[in-house]
């Protein structure tokens, strides 16, 4: 499936997560954030960059890991990405939907 939310269409899964995180652009992030009515601040960007870096390192992500990153705490993370902070921030950052392993 392809989703066109900026002027380019990128391959996503049915839930709107990018299939290839290397195709991501900041514009893509801004537009996805807009769908969640989130205006991206510096703090948001810092978190998004951290998420992308971890993805590149092959690290499995969890809310607790973000809370332990030194960039933000869990409470602020919830405020910045209300609803499901890790699911939403991952979608904005262009990385796969976090999986729960159990």
């Amino acid at each position: 499936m392809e989703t066109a939310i900026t002027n380019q269409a990128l391959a996503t899964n049915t839930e709107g997560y990018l299939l290839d995180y290397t195709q991501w652009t900041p514009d893509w992030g801004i537009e996805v954030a807009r769908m969640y009515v989130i205006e991206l601040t510096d703090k948001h960007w810092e978190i998004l960059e951290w998420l992308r870096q971890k993805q590149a390192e092959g690290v499995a992500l969890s809310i607790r890991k973000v809370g332990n990153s030194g960039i933000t705490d869990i409470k602020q993370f919830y405020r910045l990405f209300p609803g499901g902070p890790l699911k939403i921030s991952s979608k904005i950052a262009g990385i796969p939907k976090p999986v729960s392993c159990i």
Partner: protein
Amino acid sequence: MKKNLIIIGAGTAGTMMANKLNRRLDTGQWQITIIDRDNTHYYQPGFLFIPFGIYQPKDVVKTRTEFLPEDVTFLTDEVEQIEGELNQLRLKSGDVLDYDILIIATGAEIAPQETPGLKEELWYKDIFDFYTYEGAVKLAQKLKDWKGGRLVINLAETQIKCPVAPLEFTFLADAYFTDKGMRHLVDIKYVTPLSGAFTKPKATQMLNGLMEEKEIEVVPDFYLASVDNEKKVIVSYDEKEVPFDLLITIPVNKGDMMIEKSGIGDEDGLNFVPTDKFSLQSKKFKNVFVIGDTTNIPASKAGSVAHFEAEILTENIQSFINNKPLKATFDGHANCFIETGHGKAALIDFNYDTEPLPGKFPLPAIGPMDLLKATRANHVGKLAFKWVYWHMLLTGKKLPVTTHMSMTGKIKEENKETSLV
């Protein structure tokens, strides 16, 4: 001089490894040593049944040494630090041990102190865990005279040992109060950080259905931040509140403090050890292997998982000793019974790639069991697990279940045909 293989932790995984390696390694060349803090082995799966009086406390306790082979040295001590660069362990007694190969099997423990308000005034008064012997025994006393009210079962984290145990507790509680004729006085809520009763779609669908049938409300996406002892509410990070009269908590689960002290824990601060999910070798040191609840691999933290891992790890340690590639690969296989109350249970069987599916699970001699379906036979299987645990699993005997998950009997959604692989 003999070489040293040391196992830290004589719980489920460590005991199995001691037995298997003792049979497979050349004991003329290798000295196997296993270390634990004390000589009491608990059958943790039995903790689930204690609160309801189904098991008595004495049913779940034995010594560690009765399951360890004579040739293996058992040390009662605590490892305070692993010094991976030096291949050394520092013990609480002050001793320092050298190892050639190390196996970390230190499990996971509850850490209620991680959540503000959880282990304060109401702890073991109106807030209980059943993941420890003490918690399960105290909860049994509490439930005996409890007059009813709001019963809340809450998971503080997703990475917990035996992820199905909280569901089982909930179903057994429903049955317990029904049998006592007071179910109408108890409002049961299951409050979870997951988006449903379980993680994988088909199992979640089945379990959500059971919840509905039993009139248990599932409160999803609730990530516990704190407990207000005065108001008697649990509070989430996004400031949702759920009131309780009796709170059954599954607190954050963590690996041992020694992992943190040794600087070998994962980034989330939960003290689980970064481990290769296929070979079970530690990611940091080649001669260190990790097994059971204390790995960070994306598999369930369960005794059955530790059993399958033990088969793989035994092979890989032999390969390691012979300078051969670590060819045996763990597939994430888990096999769990889920008690659903009133003498029935369901069974799930899955791995890294395949979610729990419906169908039949073949068991030689005993006959096929139903997957993802509550039956009496599965309940008998669940209770038989205690016997299997003490008499076969711990001593590393072969169980009638394949190490790698098999698709035999499982039904895939698409074709509704029994797979023959």
